C-alpha cells in the first residue's frame, strides 16, 4: 500500500484536515491530544524520519509543525497541531518516543513558552542562563 494511504488509514480517526500543497509537501492536522499517538505511528510503525519541529505564534494560538520525511520517495509530511490556550500552552512531549526530539522541544519551550508534558529533561538549550524568566523571544509580541 502506498505510504499516503497507510497514513490516512492508520490515523483515520485522528486526521482533522489534509492538505497536499504539492506531491512532495503534505500537511495534515491532528488534535493536540492525539500528537503522541500520531508521532508514534509515523515514527515507529511507518519508519518515517523525524526532521524537526517548527513552533509558530499565530493569532489563533500556538502552532507546532512536526516535520517527517519519507526518504524513499522524498515526501515531506508536516503534522500540524494548534494549541489554542495562549495563557498556559502545553502539549504532550514526543521525546519519550525517541531521543532525537529532545532538543527541539527544549528549544520551542524556551523560545515560545510551550510546556512539553512528560519531557525527560526540559531545560534551556540555546538561551543564556541570565535570560529573563517568562520572556519568550519568538512570541509575536516581541518586535523583530
Amino acid at each position, binding site marked *: 500500500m502506498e505510504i499516503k494511504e497507510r497514513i490516512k488509514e492508520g490515523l483515520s480517526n485522528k486526521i482533522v484536515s489534509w492538505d497536499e500543497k504539492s506531491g512532495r*509537501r503534505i500537511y495534515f492536522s491532528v488534535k493536540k491530544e492525539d500528537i503522541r499517538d500520531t508521532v508514534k505511528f509515523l515514527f515507529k510503525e511507518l519508519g518515517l*524520519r*523525524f*526532521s524537526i519541529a517548527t513552533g509558530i505564534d499565530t493569532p489563533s494560538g500556538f502552532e507546532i509543525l512536526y516535520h517527517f520525511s519519507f526518504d524513499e520517495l*522524498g515526501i515531506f509530511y508536516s503534522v500540524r497541531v494548534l494549541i489554542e490556550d495562549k495563557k498556559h500552552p502545553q502539549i504532550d512531549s514526543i521525546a519519550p518516543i525517541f531521543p532525537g526530539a529532545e532538543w527541539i522541544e527544549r528549544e520551542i519551550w524556551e523560545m515560545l513558552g510551550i510546556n512539553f508534558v512528560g519531557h525527560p529533561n526540559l531545560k534551556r538549550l*540555546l538561551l543564556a542562563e541570565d535570560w529573563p524568566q517568562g520572556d519568550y*523571544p*519568538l512570541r509575536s509580541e*516581541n518586535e*523583530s
Partner: protein
Amino acid sequence: MSHKVIVPIGPYHPLQDEPEFFQLYVEGEKVVDIDIIIGYNHRGIEKLSESKHFDQVAFLVERICGICSSSHPYAFVLAVEDILGGEKSVVPERALYIRTIIDELQRIHSHLLWLGLAGHFIGYNTVWMWAWKYREPILDMFEMITGNRNNYAMYKVGGVRRDMLEEDKPILEKALDELLPALDLFRGAVMDDPVIKARLKGVGILTKQQAIDWCVVGPTARASGINIDVRRDEPYGVSDRLNWNVIVEKDGDIFAKTVVRILELYESVSIIRQCLDDMPGGPIDSDVKDIPPGEGIGRVEAPRGECFHYIKSDGTNRPVRHKIRAPSYMNVASNKVAAVGQTISDATITLAAVDPCYCCTERVAVINKPDNKKILNGWDLIRLSQEKTNKVKEDLLNAGPG
C-alpha cells in the same frame, strides 16, 4: 574502586567555528555519560529574519556558518521557491547548473577541512597539512566564480546573482584534475593504512538503530547504514540529471564516517565535471517580484547532512516565520550515545567525527574531587588521542607482518 570524574571540554576555542561544551563523566579511562551544552553562539537569526525582506534573508542565513555558506541560502531560496511552485518552475536552466556547482564545491572544501582536522586529532599531521593544502585551490575557485572565498552571495530567489564566465570553465576543470591525484593519495593513506584502521575501526560506533532514534543525517547517518541523501531523495539543482552514487557504509564507526566522506569527494568532483559539460547558456535569474502568501520547505544536502528551512509568508516582503535546522543540530546530540563507552583518548575524535565544526578544545578541567581541580588544555586531549595512535602503531610493528 572507580569513581566518577567529570571532564569538561569547551566551550570556546579560536579554532572552533561554533562553541560547544561537552562535559564528560569518566570512570577511570572510560566515558560513562556526557552532557552537551550549546547555545553560546545563539544569534537569534530566526527572529532577525522576520525583520528582513526576502532578498536580504539570503545574505543573513549565509552567515549562519562559514563552512556551509552555500547550504543555508540554498535551502532558504528553495523554501521560498516551494511557495512559488518549486525550484524548477522558477529558476532558469543555467542557474540550476551554477547552483549545483557551487553546492558541490562547498562539499569538497568542507570534507577536506574535516579530513585535515580528523588527521590532526589522531596524530597524522601530514594528512592535516595535505588536506588543507589541497583545499586552498578550491577556495580559489570560489573566489574566481563568486568573488568570495567564503559567503558566496550567489543565491537569490529565482536564480543566482552572478553568471559563470566561459573562461572560468577550463580553470575549474584544471583545478579538479589536479585535485584527483590528491584524493587518490588520501584514499590510499586512510583506507589502506593498517594503523588508521586499527585506530578508527570500532571506535565511536553509532548503530543503525541509534542513528534512527537520534534522527541523524548526512555522512553520520550514511556511515551507519542509513541510505539517505537529499540530493537523490528530493532532487534540487540538477542532481537528478547526473550520474553519481550515494555512499553508504555499514559499520557506524569513525572509519566508516571517514570512508564515506573521502568517497563523496570523488562523487562531487564527478558532479561538477558533468555540470560543466552539460551547462546550457541563457539567463541566470527569473526576476521574481512578489512572494505570495503560503508556506514552503527547502531541503539541501549540506556537507554534514540535511539542512532544513521553513518559510511562512503572508504576502508581504518579509517572512512571518523562518525556521532553520542545521544538520549538526541532530548529529551533535547523537554523541550522547556514540561517545559513551569510549576511552577519553577516543573522545576527541568521536566528538569530531560528526563534523560539527568542532575541533580541538581549550579550558579543559579534569575534576577528581571538588577540592582537587586539575586544569588541562585542549592540546592535552589531542595529545592523549595522538599517543594512542602511536601505541597502536608500535603494537602493529611489534606484531610484525601478517
